[in-house]
């Protein structure tokens, strides 16, 4: 039952990711990506990380994708005026895709034969929001604060970069 769920979710994830790449229209890409993100959130929930799944939906599907869509619309990119790459580029991209995929898969498969996997079942609660919060604010409080600063800086940076340079234009 769970396995079937996993396969369905995986198919959606991979399919929508592929469609993200292949869609001509950026807006379609974005929308497919949202689908992909939702399916990923499904994976998280499947893995019992409900909190993380929710955060994922909020951050990615909510914040990031909206940001992207806005940008696309801002630039008026809804029509696909992207000049497609030459054939050779596509070919090489495909080759690279296959190459790196096969490489990584083969590495993992080689590894899988040699390792005896031990599935830990402690039975303890380790991934509820309660536990995560405790860890974040105890062991990882320092990086946590750093991330806060980072986000602040990113915000300031984004504003600064996208701001129109008035003085330069005036001059």
């Amino acid at each position, binding site marked *: 039952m*769970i396995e079937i769920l996993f396969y369905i979710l*995986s198919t959606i994830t*991979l399919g929508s*990711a592929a469609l993200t790449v292949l869609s001509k229209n950026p807006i379609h890409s974005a929308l497919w990506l949202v689908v992909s993100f939702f399916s990923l959130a499904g994976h998280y929930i499947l893995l019992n*990380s409900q909190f993380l799944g929710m955060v994922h939906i909020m951050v990615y599907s909510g914040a990031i994708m909206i940001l992207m869509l806005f940008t696309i619309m801002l630039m008026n990119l809804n029509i696909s005026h992207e000049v497609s790459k030459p054939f050779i580029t596509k070919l090489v991209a495909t080759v690279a895709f296959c190459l790196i995929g096969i490489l*990584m898969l083969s590495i993992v498969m080689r590894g899988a034969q040699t390792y005896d996997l031990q599935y830990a079942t402690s039975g303890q609660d380790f*991934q509820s929001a309660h536990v995560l919060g405790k860890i974040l604010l105890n062991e990882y409080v320092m990086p946590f604060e750093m991330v806060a600063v980072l*986000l602040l800086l*990113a915000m300031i940076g984004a504003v600064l970069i996208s701001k129109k340079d008035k003085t330069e234009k005036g001059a």
Partner: protein
Amino acid sequence: MENVIEIIGIDKYIYLSIILFCIGVFGILYRRNAIVMFMCIEIMLNSANMLLVAFSTFHQDAEGQVFVFFTMAVAAAEVAVGLAILVTIYRNIGSIDIDKLKNLKG
């Protein structure tokens, strides 16, 4: 509650994330629209995130999930700044086709 990972198998997750990652790589090489490339980067990041979560469950350890947290934060920051840059570029040259960004010539 039984361990989901034990039923499905950690290897399946690894394969999934690898394929997802490769799709991201492919997208980056395939497309020339900067925003779509951004999306592909997100896909790659997410494939890594998913693996982290899977292994966190596998080891019954929360630390992996903490890192996913941080990754998300960094990704958000990255997207914010990156998009800002893209907007500026678009404003300057009227396009976000990366083939037109050739000022990095040596």
